[in-house]
């Protein structure tokens, strides 16, 4: 990253005069956080609003997923392995953090492969890996299943909550509830799937989009490109992150996903059931599919009263517009996942957004 050039372009963004107020949407939790952390959001010109879409995998995961994870782990006295992001997310009746305090064996891993090693080192017990993530993470989780098969591990399984992002963006646009002038598209999801799967935004919905990376230069130039497209009336889907995103994506990674998973309908918080937006472990690998291997029935999921995470993930509101935000819902005592996930929009606004 060229820091001098980034500084100059950031000043250009700050000094830009918009012809009319604009609303742009990002659909990646890492973008949510990075726009704050780099200070780029603080340099937005007057009239430019950034809204957060369904880009945080933890946030879009329905309560029923964690309910099932906790129920299954309890029933089979299993070790639960998870990314740190999930640990404090409230389920219908509890959270992993609370279960850990009550004695459930919950371990944070950095890589799904670490979960595999935990299973190998605890041969007498089941180890469940909570697989939540978008296209960026799915191939790593798929490789882990393949590796578990290769090592012939009998005590390892994966609870798949994996989702794919373009169908969610489509669902959002089809619902047409919120006015969006253009998209900042997720860089690392696109490293896997490529640019082409986003073209429907331009072709069917006549909106521009820019695939963007995550450092200050990427964010500043991504927003400038998007503003230029919007103001010139262009509706292209531009790859602004060519160093990491190929037109056709990473074919090997896509091949690995397709080898292990089938597409299925999936439940998204706020968006409901979206056709072909989930990744379900293929029957060939059902020995490693927690749902098939360790059947369990969680009590009916309940939503948390007053929580507007769903509206937020549809782009209808920004966090401070939720009546619970910062009052009954804080990171210490979160009502919804958007406040507790490290990349949740509410958490980002609460942490970094205080007026300065």
């Amino acid at each position, binding site marked *: 990253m060229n820091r001098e*050039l980034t500084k100059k372009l950031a000043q250009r963004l700050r000094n830009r005069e918009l012809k009319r107020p604009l609303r742009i949407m990002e659909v990646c939790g890492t973008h949510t956080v990075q726009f704050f952390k780099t200070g780029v959001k603080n340099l937005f010109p007057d009239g430019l609003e950034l809204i957060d879409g369904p880009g945080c995998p933890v946030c879009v995961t329905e309560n029923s997923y964690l309910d099932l994870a906790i129920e299954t782990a309890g029933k089979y006295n299993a070790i639960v392995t998870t990314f740190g992001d999930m640990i404090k997310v409230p389920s219908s009746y509890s959270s992993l953090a609370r279960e850990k305090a009550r004695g459930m064996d919950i371990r944070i891993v*950095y890589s799904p*492969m670490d979960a595999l090693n935990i299973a190998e080192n605890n041969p007498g017990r089941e180890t469940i890996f909570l697989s939540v993530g978008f296209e960026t993470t799915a191939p790593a989780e798929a*490789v882990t299943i393949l590796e578990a098969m290769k090592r012939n591990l009998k005590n390892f399984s994966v609870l798949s909550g994996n989702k794919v992002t373009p169908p969610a963006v489509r669902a959002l646009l089809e619902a047409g509830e919120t006015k969006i002038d253009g998209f900042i598209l997720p860089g*690392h999801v696109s490293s896997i799937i490529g640019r082409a799967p986003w073209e429907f935004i331009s072709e069917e919905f006549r909106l521009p989009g820019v695939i963007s990376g995550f450092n200050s230069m990427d964010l500043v130039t991504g927003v400038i490109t998007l503003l230029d497209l919007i103001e010139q009336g262009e509706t292209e889907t531009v790859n602004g992150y*060519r*160093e*990491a995103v190929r037109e056709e994506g990473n074919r090997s990674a896509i091949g*690995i996903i397709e080898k292990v998973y089938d597409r299925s309908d999936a439940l998204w918080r706020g968006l409901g059931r979206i056709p072909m937006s989930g990744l379900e472990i293929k029957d060939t690998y059902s020995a490693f599919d927690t749902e098939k291997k360790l059947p369990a029935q969680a009590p009916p999921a309940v939503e948390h009263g007053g929580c507007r995470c769903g509206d937020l993930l549809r782009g209808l509101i920004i966090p401070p517009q939720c009546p619970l935000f910062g009052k009954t819902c804080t990171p210490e005592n979160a009502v919804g996942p958007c406040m507790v996930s490290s990349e949740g929009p509410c958490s980002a606004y609460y942490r970094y957004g205080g007026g300065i």
Partner: protein
Amino acid sequence: MCLAIPMEIIKVNDTTAVALLKGVETEVNSMMTPGLKVGDKVLVHAGFIIEKLDPKAAEEIEKAWREYDEILERNEARGM
């Protein structure tokens, strides 16, 4: 959930590789990027290489933005 970090490959094994960032070495899974070579720049996410980086594209993008900035600067100088 998509934090991925650029690193440089310093050793290539069968399905793994050793990647370097600011003096930190870590073993990463390389199954998504066949044909990996020492010196390649890659993106690492959750212990996996998810894609090879294209340094040439990065240079081109930077050059394009430098030109963008220069054009605007010239226009401003001309009072446009």
